[in-house]
C-alpha cells in the first residue's frame, strides 16, 4: 500500500520527526482527505505537491491542529498526538508560516516576533529585553532591521522572513511554509531560500508548499504528491523528472497535458475584422488609481494585460466594470454611452468581472454552490423576480458539468471547496449572466498546471464563440499564449499595446515595460 521511495540519501537516515498515517478528514458533502500519509525527517525540505483540491491545505491544517482528523494517527517526535487546536501543535514543535502573512501589520517588528513570548518582569513586559531578543532572532536570519519599526513599513518579503523568525522563536522542530513565495520577486525568493537552507542545516524538518515547480526542484529533497484527497506517493526529488511529477499531480499521461496546451493555442487563433468595439474606453481614468487610457475591445478577441504587481492592471479592470467610479473619461458599450458605471449596470450591459481576490470579493462562503452561481444572474433581475428553480437547476447543472466543478454537488457550501473549484464556481457565476465581455483578473492565480490549462482552454473557447475577453495575469507566458493583443501597464500608466504574433516573446513585453521606463 505504501508508495515507493527508491533510494535513501545519507542524511535521510535520521528518524522521522513527523509521521502521519491513515489521515482521513470529511467535510459535509466532501471527503477532503482519504487515507493519506506524510513523513517528515529532520534536516530535510519536503515538498507537498498536488493540484488545487488535492488536499494539501487540508493536510497542513490537520498537522497544525486547525482541523480535527476523523481517523488516522499523527506522531510527532515519537509521541502520538491529538491536536485540539493550533496551540497544541505549536507546543509539540510544529510551527507554520501561512500563505497570507499572518502578522499584525500595525504592531512593531519586535512585538510581532515575540508576541506571546515576551520577556517578562513580574506581570509586566520587559520591553528592552524583548526587543533585544527579537533583534537576536532576526539576526539569525540575516535580518538587520529595527525591531521598533512598524511591520507595515517593510516589504512583503521582509514580512515573510519576520513571520519565519516568529515561527522559529519557539525552537520549532517542524516548520511549515505554505506558499511562502507567491508574492516575492526573484531576489527575495533567493533570500528566503538561504534562510530555509540554513534551517535545514540546523536540523529542522521543513514542509514546503508551492505552485512554482522550479522552486520546488531548487529547494526540496523529497516530495509527497496528493491527488483528489488521496496519496499518490512519496519520491526523492532527484529521482522524479518534472514531466512525470506533473502527470502524477494531474493524473494524466504527460502527452495529454501537452495536447491540452496545443488545443488552447489552436483555439486562440486570431479572428481579425471585428467591426464595432464591444467596449470602448476613452481617456478613462481615476485619480490615485489609473492615469487616463484608451482601450477598444472587440468581439471574439482576447486582450491580455501585462505589467508588474501594482502597475494598475487590476484598476483597469475595476474601472471598465464600474467596481470603482472613474472620475474622468467615457465608456461606450456597443455604441451606447455609459453614465454612472456600476457593477449592476455593467452586468446588464453584458460586462462581467471576475475579481482577483476570490475570498474577499468573490465567494459568499456560507452559501451553497448553487446560490453562489445564481447570485449575479439573480442580482440582474432584482430581488423580486426570482430565477425559476427549473431554469436555475439547469444552469447550475450545466456549468458544474462543463467546468468540471468538484464535488459535483450544488448543495455543498462553497467554503468547503478547494481554491480551484471555488474559482470555477465564480466563473460559472459570471458565465451564467451570458456576458459579451468578460474581464478576468488573475483567473489562474494559486491554481496549478492542470486546472490552469483547463481555464486557459475555456477562455480560448469562449473567445472563439464570440466573447470578448480581457485576461490579466502576472504570468507573461500565459498572457502571450492566449492573447491576440497585449496591453502593457507600468506605474499606473498604459504604456503600450502589442499585437501578438510569432515574433512576440516575453522579452518583447519586458522591453516595452523597461523602455517606457527610461522614456518617461
Amino acid at each position, binding site marked *: 500500500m505504501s508508495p515507493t521511495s527508491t533510494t535513501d540519501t545519507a542524511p535521510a537516515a535520521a528518524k522521522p520527526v513527523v509521521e502521519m498515517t491513515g489521515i482521513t478528514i470529511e467535510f459535509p458533502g466532501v471527503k477532503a482527505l482519504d487515507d493519506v500519509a506524510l513523513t517528515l525527517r529532520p534536516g530535510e525540505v519536503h515538498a507537498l505537491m498536488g493540484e488545487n483540491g488535492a488536499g494539501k491545505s487540508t493536510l497542513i491544517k490537520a498537522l497544525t491542529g486547525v482541523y480535527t482528523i476523523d481517523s488516522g494517527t499523527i506522531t510527532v517526535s515519537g509521541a502520538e498526538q491529538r491536536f485540539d487546536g493550533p496551540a497544541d501543535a505549536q507546543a509539540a514543535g510544529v510551527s507554520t508560516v501561512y500563505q497570507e502573512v499572518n502578522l499584525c501589520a500595525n504592531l512593531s517588528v519586535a512585538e510581532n516576533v515575540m508576541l506571546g513570548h515576551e520577556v517578562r518582569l513580574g506581570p509586566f513586559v520587559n520591553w528592552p529585553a524583548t526587543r533585544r531578543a527579537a533583534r537576536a532572532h532576526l539576526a539569525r536570519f540575516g535580518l538587520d532591521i529595527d525591531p521598533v519599526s512598524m511591520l507595515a513599513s517593510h516589504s512583503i518579503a521582509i514580512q515573510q522572513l519576520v513571520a519565519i523568525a516568529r515561527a522559529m522563536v519557539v525552537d520549532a522542530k517542524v516548520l511549515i511554509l505554505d506558499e511562502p513565495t507567491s508574492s516575492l520577486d526573484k531576489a527575495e525568493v533567493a533570500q528566503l531560500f538561504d534562510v530555509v537552507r540554513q534551517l535545514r542545516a540546523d536540523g529542522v524538518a521543513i514542509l514546503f508548499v508551492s505552485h512554482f515547480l522550479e522552486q520546488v526542484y531548487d529547494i526540496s529533497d523529497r516530495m509527497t504528491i496528493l491527488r483528489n484527497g488521496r496519496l499518490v506517493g512519496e519520491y526523492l526529488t532527484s529521482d522524479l523528472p518534472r514531466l512525470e511529477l506533473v502527470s502524477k499531480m494531474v493524473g494524466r499521461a504527460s502527452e495529454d497535458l501537452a495536447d491540452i496546451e496545443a488545443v488552447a493555442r489552436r483555439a486562440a487563433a486570431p479572428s481579425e475584422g471585428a467591426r464595432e468595439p464591444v467596449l470602448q474606453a476613452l481617456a478613462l481614468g481615476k485619480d490615485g488609481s489609473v492615469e487616463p487610457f484608451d482601450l477598444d475591445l472587440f468581439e471574439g478577441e482576447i486582450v491580455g494585460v501585462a505589467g508588474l504587481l501594482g502597475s494598475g492592471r487590476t484598476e483597469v479592470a475595476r474601472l471598465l466594470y464600474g467596481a470603482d467610479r472613474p472620475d474622468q473619461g467615457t465608456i461606450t458599450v456597443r455604441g451606447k454611452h455609459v453614465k454612472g458605471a456600476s457593477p449592476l449596470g455593467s452586468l446588464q450591459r453584458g460586462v462581467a468581472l471576475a475579481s482577483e481576490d476570490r475570498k474577499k470579493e468573490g465567494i459568499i462562503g456560507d452559501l451553497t454552490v448553487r446560490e453562489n452561481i445564481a447570485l449575479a444572474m439573480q442580482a440582474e433581475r432584482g430581488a*423580486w423576480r426570482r430565477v425559476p428553480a427549473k431554469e436555475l437547476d439547469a444552469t447550475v447543472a450545466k456549468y458544474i458539468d462543463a467546468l468540471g466543478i468538484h464535488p459535483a454537488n450544488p448543495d455543498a457550501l462553497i467554503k468547503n471547496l478547494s481554491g480551484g473549484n471555488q474559482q470555477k464556481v465564480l466563473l460559472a457565476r459570471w458565465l451564467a449572466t451570458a456576458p459579451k465581455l468578460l474581464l478576468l483578473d488573475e483567473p489562474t492565480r494559486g491554481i496549478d498546471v492542470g486546472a490552469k490549462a483547463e481555464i486557459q482552454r475555456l477562455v480560448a473557447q469562449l473567445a472563439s464563440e464570440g466573447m470578448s475577453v480581457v485576461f490579466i495575469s502576472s504570468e507573461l507566458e500565459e498572457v502571450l499564449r492566449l492573447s491576440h493583443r497585449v496591453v502593457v501597464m507600468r506605474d499606473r500608466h498604459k504604456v503600450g499595446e502589442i499585437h501578438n504574433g510569432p515574433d512576440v516573446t516575453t522579452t518583447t513585453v519586458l522591453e516595452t515595460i523597461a523602455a517606457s521606463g527610461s522614456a518617461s
Partner: protein
Amino acid sequence: MTGTITGADGRTRFQTTVARVTGHQLFWPVVALVVLLLACGIVSPGFLDVTVRDGHLFGQPVDILRQSATPLLLAIGMCLVIATGGIDLSVGAVMAISLAVSLTYIAESGTGSNLSTALTGLFLGLVVALAIGVFNGFLVTVLGIQPFIATLILMIAGRGIAMLVTKGQITTVTSPPFKSIGSGFVLGIPTPVIIAGGVFVLVALLVRRTALGMLLESIGINREASRLAGVKSRNITWFVYILCGLLAGLAGIVYGAPTMAADSNNIGLMKELDAIMVVVLGGTKLDGGKFSLAGTIVGALILTTLERAVVIFHLPTQVTPLFKALVLIVVCVAGSERLRGKLKIRRTSRPVVAAEVAA
C-alpha cells in the same frame, strides 16, 4: 480494513439521523419550549387546557400565543436586519411613538367609537413608524453610520418624541374598535395572533418566494462580493430597516391597544433586547448571513412562556430577567457548534482505537 469500514458505516447512519435532528438549529430551542410548557403543566394542572367560551378560544396556551404577538412582530423585522449584518435598537421606542401618534389622533378627533377614526389612527401610527424606518435606513445605508449607533439615536430620542406627541401626558382614549386590535377575536382566535401570524406568513412568502432572502444572506456574509455581483445592497438593506420600523410600529399598537393608554415612558421598554433575544433563540447568528424566520416563532413562544412560567411557579416577577438569561444560556450552550465539535471528538475517538485493536 473492510470490517472497520462497514462498522463505521452502520454507526454513521445512526449517528447521521441523530445528528440531523439534534444538529438542526431549532432542535434545542424547541426542546427548551417543550420542557417549559411541560413544567408549567406539571406545576399547574390544566395549564395546557384550551376551552371554547362564547365562541372564543380561552386558556393559558391561547394567552401565550396572544402575548407572543408583540415580540414576534419585532423579531421578524429584527431578524431580517440582523441577516444583513445590522441591528435595530430603536424598535422599543418606535412602539411608543406609534402608539402615541395613534392615540393622540383618536383623542383629538373626539370620535373614538367610529371605526374610521380608529383605522385612521392605526394608519397614522404605521406611517410614522415607516418614516422612522426610512430614517434609520438612510443613516445606515446612505451615510454609512454603523447600525448600532444609527439606531441608538432613536432608541434614546424616541421616547422624548413620544412624550412631545402626548405633551408629556399619558394619553388615554375610549375607542372600542381600536381596542379590539389588541383584545378582540377573529373567528374565535385573538386578533393579535391573527395579525402576527398573517405578518409572518406574508414576510416569509416575501423573503423565500422572491430572491430577497438569498440576497439578504449574501449581503450579510460578504457585502463587497455581493456588490460586485450586482446586488443592490443599499436598496435591499434600506428596505429591511423600513420593514423593521413598520413592524415595530404595528407591535406598539397591538401591545398598547387593550389599555388604550399611551404611556410613553413604559411602552416597549427594553423590548428591543427581547427582540434580539428572540432572534438569537431562533438560531440566527448576530454576525449576519443565514437567518431563520421560523426560529423567531419558537423564540417568541419561549420568551412568553418564560414570563408566564414565573407566575405559574409563584416566583417574584422581579426575577423574570434572571430566568430569561438562564434559558438563553442553556439554549446557546446546547446549540454551540464548538461544544458539539468537542463532544464529537470524544465520541469518535473511542471507536477508532477499538478498531485498531481489532485489526
